[in-house]
């Protein structure tokens, strides 16, 4: 009955009515820009996590920061208090609960990190299911950053080769840049004495004096 009446109307009136109907639905449809409501292609995500979770190694990331490579956004997904206590320079804090409402854009290259890989993996899953294009994680999270960049272990033996010496000096310089220092001896012996460099958020990149306890340098 109603449809018959509708069909009898002139085309422009029909179009107008459809437009009003779409407008009314839109009022109740909710925010179209919200990324919270998403359909997950479970198979696609499974395949992606099987082969293609892009990981960035802490040493490479340190290298990028020093060289001033900024085609990515470094995102700390830990809680605010942890971020304020220590964060990797040039990072921004987006706790995992605010991830989808943040200003991160879907076409940006995003590198996530948490304390370990666990939180970052969850964040990766969230972003990937909301169809973010390029999301990678810092391998090993802050823990790795601490071990590989801030307080790297001296790996050379008693008589280091030229290459080993060169590597050692590079690591030492990098750790110094980020306010850490080269470690010697076993990990167990040194981690207790390591003090994280203190930073204020948002952190700026600048050369800092070693915050950690001064260690014996050289091999």
């Amino acid at each position, binding site marked *: 009955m109603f449809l018959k009446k509708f069909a009898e109307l002139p085309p422009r009136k029909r179009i107008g009515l459809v437009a009003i109907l779409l407008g009314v639905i839109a009022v109740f449809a909710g925010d179209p820009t919200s990324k919270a409501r998403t359909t997950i292609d479970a198979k696609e995500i499974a395949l992606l996590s099987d082969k293609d979770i892009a990981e960035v190694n802490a040493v490479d990331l340190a290298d990028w920061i020093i060289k001033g490579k900024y085609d990515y956004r470094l995102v700390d997904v830990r809680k605010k208090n942890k971020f304020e206590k220590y964060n990797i320079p040039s990072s921004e804090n987006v706790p995992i609960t605010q991830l989808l409402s943040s200003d991160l854009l*879907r076409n940006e290259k995003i590198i996530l990190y948490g304390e370990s890989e666990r939180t970052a993996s969850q964040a990766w899953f969230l972003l990937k299911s909301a*169809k973010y294009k390029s999301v990678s994680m810092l391998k090993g999270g802050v823990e790795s950053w601490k071990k590989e960049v801030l307080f790297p272990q001296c790996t050379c033996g008693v008589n280091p080769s030229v290459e080993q010496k060169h590597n050692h000096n590079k690591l030492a310089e990098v750790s110094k840049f980020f306010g850490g220092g080269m470690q010697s001896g076993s990990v167990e012996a040194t981690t207790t004495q390591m003090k994280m460099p203190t930073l204020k958020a948002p952190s700026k990149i600048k050369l800092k004096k070693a915050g950690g306890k001064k260690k014996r340098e050289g091999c």
Partner: protein
Amino acid sequence: MIAPFYKFGYFNDEVSLIVAFVLGLAFGFLFERGGFGSGRMLAAQFYFTDMRVFKVMFTAITTAMIGLFYLSWMGFLDLSLVYFGETYLLPQVVGGLILGIGFVIGGYCPGTSSVAISTGKIDAMVYALGGLFGIFGFGEIFPWIEDFFNSTHMGKINLPEFLGIDYGIVLFVVILMAIAGFTGADWGEKLMAKKKAAQVKES
């Protein structure tokens, strides 16, 4: 796949030029067919004698808005990546006034003059030349108006953000505005036709 395709890197710069060319062709063709290639037709909007251009334009705006809303709602499009210009309120009000005055006097806006040139309209060619000269003049006086040019900057902001209301409500209001506009345009056309008929009778 999620739009905008170019920003997600589904095609490169070269392909984007081809896409732009094809879209440009379609745009120009539909513009011309929509009646935008005639200065008389365009100027008629301002005298309420033939509101075709107004109707085409507002239909396009409303259709695009409904389409973008629902595509984004269904997750096929990321609206935050769709480009639109930043708002500089005062300079844009002044610019809009100048454009409007030019539109009534010249019978064209920049886009429609290009469309009209394609059909060999001499007035459109003169109009476009004037436009180029205006661009040149603007460039020359820019140092003096630079402060004004950059004033009242509001950033990239759209109506829902500015008014702090839901996107859906803005959409609904724009649809109502369009329908009211079309009804008003029809009414204006009829009124002007009556007046004209009366004038013809008198003479």
